[in-house]
């Protein structure tokens, strides 16, 4: 049983959530609390329902059963615009029309704050300028999206989510397709948003070591269920890696951060 206090303070809460596509049930009876001001990383093998869960939390997917509560209110009963002012979602592979400039892309993030007569208010401009600055995209603002490198493109999308001005951010694999330096770059940005601006972040991450470093809480999923949640040290254990990923690995302290570091063994080094 969750304590009453946790239920009251959770920004997002999944309640006996059942999610699926077509005939396939992907998530069945999942409970989760996302506490304010935390960075939560959802980890798990491919196809375990991480992205599906994130989409439901951001109201992109309608649950089959159960409910998602945003600040204590049923998210599916809130006006769409109101949700869009509180929760920003960065989908896994967002698509942009050819020829769109970075500035125009980021400015789209202001959509929930605009109306047909108010398309570029001073507030909009300030928020977009700030979002570009935080993601170091100001100098690239007039480039088109297709001219950018993968890392820059990802920063542009994050910038759009920032311009939306939500204090809850859901990021679906924000580091996919990026080299390690750019992965660190993006995660440092997430860390900065969390530390400086107090945003609550939920992200799906594949890299366990980076998840352990950048998240306050880890949620390990398998087959549409949460196997364990807690601090990185509580979740990333050798026994859990075997259980969730079927991975034979050693877990040692990260020499830099002290967080758990997963060292896979593999058949070549198995004794």
């Amino acid at each position, binding site marked *: 049983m969750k304590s009453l206090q946790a239920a009251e303070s959770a920004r997002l809460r999944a309640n006996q959530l059942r999610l699926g596509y077509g005939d396939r049930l992907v998530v069945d009876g999942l409970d989760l609390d996302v506490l304010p001001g935390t960075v939560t990383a959802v980890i798990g093998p491919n196809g375990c329902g991480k992205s599906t869960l994130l*989409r439901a939390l*951001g*109201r*992109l997917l309608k649950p089959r059963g159960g409910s998602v509560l945003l600040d204590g209110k049923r998210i599916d009963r809130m006006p*769409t*615009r109101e*949700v*869009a*002012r509180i*929760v*920003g*979602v*960065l*989908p896994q592979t*967002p*698509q*942009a*029309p*050819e*020829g*769109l*400039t970075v*500035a*125009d892309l980021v*400015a*789209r993030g202001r*959509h*929930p704050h*605009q*109306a*047909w*007569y*108010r*398309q*570029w*208010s*001073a*507030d*909009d*401009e*300030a*928020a*977009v*300028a*700030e*979002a*570009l*600055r935080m993601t170091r995209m*100001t100098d690239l*603002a*007039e480039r*088109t999206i297709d001219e950018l490198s993968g890392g820059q493109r990802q920063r542009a999308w994050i910038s759009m989510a920032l*311009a*939306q*001005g939500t*204090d809850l951010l859901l990021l679906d694999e924000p580091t996919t397709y990026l080299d390690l330096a750019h992965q660190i770059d993006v995660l440092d940005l997430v860390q900065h948003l969390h530390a*400086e*601006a*107090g*945003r609550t972040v939920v992200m799906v991450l594949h890299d366990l070591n980076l998840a352990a470093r950048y998240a306050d809480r880890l949620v390990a999923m398998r087959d549409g269920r949460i196997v364990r949640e807690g601090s990185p040290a509580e979740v990333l254990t050798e026994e859990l890696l075997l259980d969730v990923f079927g991975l034979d690995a050693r877990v040692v302290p990260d020499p830099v951060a002290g967080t758990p570091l997963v060292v896979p063994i593999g058949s070549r080094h198995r004794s």
Partner: protein
Amino acid sequence: MNPTRTPATTESTGDTVPGRRALRLGPLSTVWRPRALLVPVLALAVLLLVMAANMGRGEFPISVADVLRVLAGGGERRQQFIVLDLRLPRSLTGALVGAALGLSGAITQSVARNPLASPDILGVTWGAGAGAVTVLMLGGSYGSISGPLGSVGLPVAGLLGGLLAGLAVYALSWRRGIDGFRMVLVGIGVSAVMANLTYWLLTVGDVTDAGRAMVWITGSLNGRGWEHVTPVALALVVLVPLALFLGRVLGALQFGDDTARSLGVRVDRSRGLLVLMAVVLAAVATAAAGPVAFVALATPQIAMRLTGGAQPPLVASALLGAVLTVTADLVARTAFGVVELPVGVVTAVLGAPYLMYLLIRRRREARA
């Protein structure tokens, strides 16, 4: 509580966004885009000239200057009669049909995120054509079509046929959302069905009816009167403001469903409404002038390149559609001496190479 609005320190870069200069007046605000303003203004001027030139042509030639004088309220009585009563409806039908097709194409291409997705390709035009041909063939002699059947029956039948085809395409390409490419493929199939239905109707009907219906199928502005102007004008008066109001949503819909939804757009509802508007526009236009090819396909893309955006602009697409249609009509009437071609022949001749260009470019992109 809202941490994004902390422009407290605006040292180096300031609070302006490169490439997005603001234009603000009280509570109204928008981005200052000179080209997006200039293109419609120029298009309107060109439209007026081309219409004047078109209205000047005929058994009694009238100079462009005289036509303009008549339109401004002056001119001789005889010129007034010829221009206003005899020739204006034709050019006006052409302009309105072109505007409706341009706007319709701009909407469908944005919604499907695909430059191929115009009402001609999506089967709407052929659906409307099949509906209208049914009336032409079953409605008895073509001569009586100018009666109530012509002013009400034909547009309504066209609208029903277009709606039916549009609905079929939308329903058949629906699979947990709309994919533009699938929509185009399904549309080509529905187009073929509707086209064959039309040809079948022609073979079973009366020969003289069929001959006249054939001209209509190519898309013709010949003998268009005020009864053809009214339905299209009505549709535009209602739907243009609505389209502009919903146009803001089109910008968000261009980014995939998930992103649009996370931006607070009710994706399915908005998209359904927009597609419905596009279908009505294309169907009403087709009922008035027949399936005029290419206008809905090309003008949104031309307008987009002229205005320099990443999305077909609604107003510019409509105005350029009007310019293109009236120009094509002028060419069809003048280029071949005494022989007057239907306007659809000219637009189709322009359209075929453009369509091939689009397909080749798409293929290259798919490979890259």
